[in-house]
């Protein structure tokens, strides 16, 4: 697995040659990298390209209960749009979901990794905790931005915040064929999207747990929580 150089990335960006007659799965197109809008000259380094911060953010909301269950329930998040020139204040020890300005499309033989730019990292801003980008991915990258410093930080859309590295992946033809369709939970997002989870019960059934425990709260009026509590108290855990 090697990291692609600037020239190799640019070479792969020049690879897609859309066929006017054929919309469906064009192999030349599949082989190409897309980064749009096109990064500026100064955003390239020998082995990486800078990615800029987009305009959309998802602000986490405090849930009604003092914990988050990684279940198939949707988390409450408030979407905000920050126009060019404006900024979002990220208070100390707070988090927000953002996204890259650039939309990325990777071919099936390349994976990517997004890293916090070193200068940004030195302000104790972390932009990614899930930095791996799978082959075939397409979309703006969701950034899990955390301010771990003791000072508020202003986030202006358009600043170069991360670096994208591309790496080759050895997939055989069979594996490539399996990945030829558009798969995954997040296809082509253009702004940060709230996480999606499979049902907690379904996930844990795979390890033999039919009734996962979830704490109940005396003030909770949530039917689902009540149901879980009921199940927790009545059903034996295997």
């Amino acid at each position: 697995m090697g990291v692609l150089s600037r020239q190799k990335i640019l070479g792969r960006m020049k690879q897609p040659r859309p066929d006017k007659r054929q919309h469906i799965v064009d192999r030349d197109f599949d082989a190409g990298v897309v980064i749009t809008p096109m990064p500026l000259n100064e955003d390239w380094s020998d082995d990486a390209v800078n990615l800029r911060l987009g305009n959309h953010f998802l602000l986490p909301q405090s849930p009604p209960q003092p914990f988050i269950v990684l279940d198939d329930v949707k988390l409450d998040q408030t979407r905000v749009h920050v126009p060019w020139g404006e900024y979002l204040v990220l208070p100390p020890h707070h988090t927000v979901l953002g996204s890259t300005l650039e939309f990325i499309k990777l071919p099936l033989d390349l994976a990517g990794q997004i890293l916090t730019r070193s200068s940004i990292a030195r302000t104790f801003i972390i932009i990614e905790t899930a930095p791996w980008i799978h082959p075939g991915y397409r979309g703006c990258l969701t950034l899990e931005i955390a301010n771990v410093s003791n000072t508020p930080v202003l986030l202006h859309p358009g600043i170069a915040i991360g670096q994208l590295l591309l790496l080759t992946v050895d997939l055989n033809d069979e594996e490539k064929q399996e990945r030829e369709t558009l798969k995954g939970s997040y296809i082509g997002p253009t702004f940060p999207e709230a996480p999606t989870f499979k049902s907690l019960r379904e996930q844990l059934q795979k390890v033999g747990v039919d009734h996962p425990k979830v704490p109940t709260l005396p003030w909770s009026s949530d039917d689902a929580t009540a149901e879980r509590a009921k199940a927790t108290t009545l059903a034996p855990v295997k």
Partner: protein
Amino acid sequence: MNGDERSRALLHDTAACYRFVKSTSAACRLNSGFPSYSDPTRKLIAHIRDLSLSTQDFLQTFPSQNPDDPAKYRSKREQLWLIRAAWKSLHFYVQPAVDANTLNVPTELVQLLTQRVRAIDNCESLEFAVIHTDKLNYFQFPPGDFQQTVIDLGDVVSAKWAFPPDLGLIALPHSQAQHLFLNGLLAHEIGHFVFAKLNCFDRITAAISEGLRAAFAPPIDTALNATQLQQFPEVLQDWAEELFCDLFGVYLLGPSFVLASIELFDLPNILAADGTMDARAAGSQFKFEWSHPARLFRLSRQTALLESLGWWNAISENGSHHIRIMDLCRNLRQGSFSYEEVVAPLGSKIIDAFFRTVESIEAEVARVTEKLRNGDGRAREIAEFVELKDVISTYLCQAVIPSTLFVGNEFRKPSAIVLLNAAHLFYLSGIEDLMSNSDKPDLSDIRQRDIWMERVENWTTKGLEDIALPNERGG
């Protein structure tokens, strides 16, 4: 009432008015946080806020001149009445403006439309604040309505700020902000503002009079009563302005505007099972109404304009049923239309008068939008559209935003109009191809279609945003 009683009553009512103004304008207290607004909307909100502060300052000193004189008291009462009446009017605009933050209006599209309009002579400084409405309709607030209220109020309270004359107010259905393609209809509403701004009516009024004279030649004209003589020109004026704005929308956005009109007018339902026009379903669409020409008439003129601009040849092979509907409307004749809000044969005579006016209206909108075309009268973007429409479709079909294309061994940024139109056509005819590229596609699943249709609109919106960046070529 004696002087003291008058004074106390006036103090009380002034304070009540103060509270009314303060609460009405409370939502306009902008801060640097969220939500965010486009510059024109921010201007509108700030103007209402400043007007509120001026009103409150005025009311603060208002009762100090003790109205011993009953005539002065009467004058004060009238001023209070004027202030309240003005703020009752402004109340209508406050929440719709405050709700229309950049997340809830199609900001990229409005910027594109503004940029296009500014290419027109004497429209270089126009800008548009898009605000919400609970009606499922797009409309433009006639400049006079809001501005006159503001001017009248400003005179009473001695406000220091004048409302920007080049700021248009347009209403967008509050639920439709994310529907990029449908929102192309904003171009029609911008047309209303331009129509008033450039006094276009003055240039077609003679044609309307001439049309009426010719259509209502004796002996019919002698049978018209005074009401009809006044009413008919007004009906034609409304129809003329609507047609002007439709054609203006076509000049601004190209086929995308027409496709949006078809959706808003619900015209796909006129298609019969065999793809021809279902006469019964289409019946009402041939009828002119007092405020608007018949929908199929409007569509026929829009399509005719697409032909003359060179768009039709570039889009006619698209497989969408929307194109079929446009094709069916291309050769509708005058006799197909009716106006039934007056007794026969007056309806057909009014339509006759209007048809005699159409050429002048079309000439006027062509004159206004001259800078949006090439010297040969064709739309500037046709050649680029023909070159790139399939490339853009391929990118979208691969779930990729088509804002940086690799074509002919170079990176290309399509123009916004080309991207919008190619993507709109893909939205109508390419969703199944896109779905076929996905995991476990079910073309009959409406939820799946909804997801992919939304994605295409999001990608197009992001593409328009990317294109608007003052980017330089990388690499």
